[in-house]
């Protein structure tokens, strides 16, 4: 099925990206190599011990964790789906998760109150370092825009899937409201409005490959950490407060960023709906989602479980922390005139 109209910015060839044989990504160190090696075997054939856990912020740990979680969401090329619940692989994942959560706790420190953590999302300090969306408005550049879209694709192509894991873990009005938000994320009953689908439209509109994990080799640890944190919180019921706080922060921070990215597209002269709708939809939708998440989901969860406050605040702080780390990575690369992706710049749009 053809999923999008021919777009304004692609040249004459097919709207999908270059076809490549689906392949597992390249290892980034001994642990991701061990995971990739075992995934090529049959489930149950054993996972070698990894010795010392790697740096939780590093490329090796983040890719290994990403691959472990990906088994829950979708097929990996050539990998038996039975690995999803392989006890030895889960044990390896647990060690990576433990180290990642400990690193997040150290980096966040005292999360403070829910209100203060949320206030930092709603009213970011003026004059602070600029994130990618602000940089793209300041200096619109289609190749940088495409880089940003490639980074985010590891989450956005499964947008709202990690957050759906909250549903069975909440009750009452928190559950009702998170379902209302997710209903919107999943297109309110219309497949062509599913936010992940709007993102695939955007990628094709920018001449990018919208295949799952097509750019995984290109995406560095700071972005993988963003999506791994969502999975970590989502796949553990005991971390539901963190998942709720993180989701609320995501929604609350989204509208202004989406508005800036819509502005950047306009400045670039890109008015193709395949590219713009993802952002304009998020400006509007997330203004609503923010209210539902804060008032009903966090409000309801705190009513049911007052003891969840510290975890909620922590989840909010983690969202801010990881966005800032990712933003700093992109900013530093661009300031140095480098690509922010692994492996250098993408093939330019003009060259396609």
């Amino acid at each position, binding site marked *: 099925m053809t999923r999008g109209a021919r777009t304004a910015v692609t040249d004459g060839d097919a709207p999908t990206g270059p076809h490549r044989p689906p392949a597992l990504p390249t290892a980034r160190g001994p642990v991701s190599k061990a995971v990739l090696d075992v995934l090529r075997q049959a489930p149950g054939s054993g996972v070698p011990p990894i010795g010392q856990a790697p740096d939780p912020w590093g490329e090796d740990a983040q890719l290994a964790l990403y691959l472990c979680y990906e088994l829950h969401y979708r097929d990996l090329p050539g990998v038996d789906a039975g690995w999803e619940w392989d006890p030895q692989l889960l044990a390896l994942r647990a060690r990576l998760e433990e180290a990642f959560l400990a690193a997040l706790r150290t980096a966040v420190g005292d999360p403070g*109150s*829910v*209100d*203060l*953590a*949320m*206030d930092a999302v*709603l*009213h970011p300090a003026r004059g602070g370092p600029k994130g990618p969306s602000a940089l793209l408005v300041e200096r619109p550049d289609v190749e940088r825009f495409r880089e940003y879209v490639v980074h985010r694709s590891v989450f956005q192509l499964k947008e709202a899937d990690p957050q759906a894991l909250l549903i069975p873990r909440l009750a009452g*009005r928190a559950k*009702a*409201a998170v*379902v*209302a938000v997710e*209903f*919107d994320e999943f297109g*309110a009953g219309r497949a062509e409005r599913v936010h992940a689908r709007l993102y695939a439209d955007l990628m094709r509109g920018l001449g990018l490959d919208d295949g799952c994990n097509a750019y995984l080799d290109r995406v560095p640890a700071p972005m993988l950490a963003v999506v791994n944190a969502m999975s970590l919180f989502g796949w553990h019921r005991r971390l539901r407060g963190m998942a709720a706080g993180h989701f609320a922060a995501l929604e609350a921070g989204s*509208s*202004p960023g989406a*508005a800036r990215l819509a502005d950047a597209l306009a400045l670039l002269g890109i008015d193709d709906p395949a590219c713009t709708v993802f952002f*304009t939809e998020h*400006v*509007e*939708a*997330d*203004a*609503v989602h*923010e*209210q*539902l998440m*804060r*008032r*009903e989901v*966090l*409000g309801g969860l*705190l*009513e049911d479980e007052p003891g969840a406050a510290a975890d909620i605040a922590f989840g909010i702080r983690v969202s801010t922390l990881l966005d800032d780390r990712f933003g700093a990575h992109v900013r530093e690369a661009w300031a140095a005139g480098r690509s922010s992706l692994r492996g250098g710049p993408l093939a330019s749009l003009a060259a396609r």
Partner: protein
Amino acid sequence: MATWQQPEHDGEDRPPTPRSAACPRGITVVPNGPVLIEGPVEVAMPDGTTARSERVVVAVCTCLRSRRLPWCDTSHRARPRRTSARGE
């Protein structure tokens, strides 16, 4: 259909959103923010056009700062004021 009630602890002294069979449409006024209305809604605009939204809940701008009127786009945040994480 979910109910969108005013949280009891948002620090504002006002009755909760009316919710009864006689008034099935829940409307929540967010202090210094949008009005939340159960969708779908149609808004008759001053210029004679109609804005329509199909969302389960719609946020209608009351601060008139939105660039996407009649919908809230979070521009109301620019106003300096006290906030609460569980509702503005």
